[in-house]
């Protein structure tokens, strides 16, 4: 028994070190290397079945957030129109606020990169980011120089590049200090393009919502797996899709939002930085991922000798939520100290590894490939 207890503590310690990115530096925080004693004798809840996991994710997370994105997007065209008609500070402020709501709502579903978001490249069309090779700026410059007003015709923008169709292109027009959106002649064509983009974002978010919620849509597909289902042959495959989204989301947040801050080799501007929304984007990403993590409750599958992982995860979420994602403290921080960017990155990475390599296995799920594979 003594040997077993020592083994468990050593195993817990080894995992915590690995999950925290093997970072034993002081700034990594106490929780990163803590080896909580395994809980003993606590009553265990029944593990959430794969089918229940999927149902909970759809009803409690996916559909409400997809609806939220759709509702936020519907406010954009009028706001763009008002700015272009009046150019008043009030109209500008209104557009800024509505734009922020759409960006935040999008951040909450960015990692649902399957189904209606994957089909026809809708995800890239709504939010073409990251853009390390500057497609948005280059292609927008070409479009603006063409002054082709046919772009305002229904469906015309939908046939153009994804880089021109969504939020980053609209942001570029909104933040151009040389030629701001407004009633003047100089901004006439820009306003035509901005209006077309806003309408296109509404179309895309409607299509995504419809794709999820219509009869025989993606929600039904996930909820009714089986031999005749062309995508999900059993409940486990449907559950894997949800867990994969969680892993992809943690990967996106770690590698695209956090890692560029600590690796000088990576030259990548944060999302929606022109609008100073990078912190709002980070906060929305983390809140959303935490909510989905709790919803699918992979921890309910942990055997008694691994229950310490719950404590580690709790400390990690607390650290991620205490950070503003850029070295500062979040408004609602639960920790007194400010987690360093390195700690935030390592913990995000550790959490991803824990979900991918520990919790999913405990839940008897085989996680395979995703779009982040490859170069």
């Amino acid at each position: 028994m003594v040997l077993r207890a020592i083994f468990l503590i050593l195993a817990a310690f080894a995992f915590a070190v690995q999950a925290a990115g093997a970072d034993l530096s002081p700034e990594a925080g106490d929780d990163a290397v803590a080896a909580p004693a395994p809980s003993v004798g606590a009553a265990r809840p029944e593990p959430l079945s794969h089918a229940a996991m999927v149902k909970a994710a759809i009803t409690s997370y996916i559909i409400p957030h997809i609806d939220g994105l759709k509702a936020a997007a519907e406010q954009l065209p009028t706001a763009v129109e008002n700015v272009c008609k009046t150019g008043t500070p009030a109209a500008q402020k209104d557009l800024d606020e509505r734009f922020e709501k759409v960006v935040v709502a999008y951040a909450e579903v960015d990692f649902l990169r399957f189904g209606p978001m994957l089909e026809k490249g809708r995800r890239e069309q709504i939010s073409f980011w990251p853009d390390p090779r500057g497609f948005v700026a280059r292609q927008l410059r070409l479009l603006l120089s063409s002054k082709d007003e046919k772009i305002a015709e229904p469906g015309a923008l939908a046939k153009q590049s994804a880089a021109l169709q969504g939020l980053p292109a609209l942001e570029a027009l909104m933040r151009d200090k040389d030629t701001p959106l407004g009633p003047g002649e100089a901004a006439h064509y820009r306003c035509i393009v901005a209006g077309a983009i806003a309408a296109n974002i509404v179309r895309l978010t409607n299509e995504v919502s419809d794709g999820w919620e219509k009869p025989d849509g993606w929600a039904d597909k996930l909820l009714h797996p089986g031999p005749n289902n062309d995508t999900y042959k059993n409940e486990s495959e449907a559950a894997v899709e949800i867990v994969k989204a969680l892993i992809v989301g943690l990967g996106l947040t770690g590698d695209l939002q956090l890692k560029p801050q600590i690796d000088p080799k990576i030259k990548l501007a944060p999302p929606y930085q022109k609008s100073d929304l990078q912190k709002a984007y980070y906060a929305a990403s983390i809140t959303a991922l935490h909510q989905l993590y709790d919803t699918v409750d992979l921890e309910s599958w942990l055997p008694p000798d691994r229950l310490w992982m719950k404590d580690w995860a709790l400390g990690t979420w607390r650290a991620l939520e205490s950070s503003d994602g850029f070295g500062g403290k979040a408004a609602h921080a639960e920790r007194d100290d400010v987690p360093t960017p390195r700690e935030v990155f390592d913990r995000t990475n550790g959490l991803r590894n824990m979900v991918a390599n520990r919790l999913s296995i405990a839940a008897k799920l085989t996680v395979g490939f995703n779009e982040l594979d490859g170069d």
Partner: protein
Amino acid sequence: MSRKSSARGRAAQLLLAVTVAASLGANPVFAGPPATKDIMKNYGDLAEAMYSDALTKAKDLDKSIDAFLAAPSTETLAAARDAWKASRVPYMQTEGFRFGNKVVDDWEGEVNSWPLDEGLIDYVDKDSYGDSKEENPLYTANIIANKKFRLGPKMLDASKIDKKVIAKLNSALDVESNVGTGYHAIEFLLWGQDLHGTGPGAGERPASDYDLKSCTHGNCDRRRDYLKAASGLLVDDLEEMAGDWKPDGKARKALSAGDESVQLATVLTGLGSLSYGELAGERMKLGVLLHDPEEEHDCFSDNTHNSHYYDQVGMMEIWNGKYDGATPVSGPSIAELARAKAPDAAKRVDDAMAVTLEKIKAIKVKADSGEMAYDQMLAAGNDVGNKMILDAVDALVSQARAIEAVVAGLNLKVKIEGSDSLDDPDKVAKAK
């Protein structure tokens, strides 16, 4: 079960299978799943045969470049271009070995890096290419025209262009699109930029760009040195990889170091990751969503349809353990194992691979017919072409899902890679 009793069981199964097959007048059928060690030996043999064929074709390319440089003409340039296209056929079939095998993945950047900022290498059309790119200080460095230039704190002496100098260009200044070597650098040197956008036509570099007597675009001597160094380096690199897959080579050794389940998972990781993230995502979907011909894989030569097609052919060969190359290989495969242990999942892969092949073949047939090249298919407003590409993307994603089902059916685990900080903490700077 002990090894002896297992062998007796296999022998009994074999006898039964042969008896049944003989009674049906068919070829013998080997019942029971193949052993992992036999699958992995055949997998290594496949890799060795495929990389050896890629090496042979790279040597042919090198010889045709010698012939072209000896007497630059439209005809000898066309022969070199044909040799380049032929060299892509066996190489693309090897790409299913890349992901999962670290030895291959670490090496791959030297031979098939893409996309590249070609202005690093030679002259470009500034109207379409531009003068500069914020992310890449070497965007128009043009090493062929410049005998030295700054690489960060150091000056690169390129007074003589050779293999060592061009190898230093790869990922220079930590910019991935700085590519100095490999198939695509050679492709650019043979074709030049494709200035037709999404219209018909590929690059039209004149043979006189290499003619010392009537040189066009200047620096023909240095351009010749570059082309020869690049083709020679490609041969060297493929020699290395073909050697790595010989029975005592480091790729086989690295693979055999893992336990059996890790070895089998490596095979499926290669197929799944190439199908989804790489081919469906990076190489196909992004290009059609951006409608940008620079995003097609073989953008100078308009050979993209063939590259994608042979990627799929290679994945099917690896899955089935069978390759009809210069040295035909056929043996126990992961497909056989899956058919025995997870038949529904195996059938799903078989079906998905057939659908993917059909979709990519449709692209190849359309492009080969001359009706529509790949860069025309991805043009904005080309609904027919866009759909052909997106159909292939969807098929590849389904193929990855099917492979994932085999991973589950065989009770394997695909390793989800951590970020650099976990795999190599030194790669990431300490917190600021």
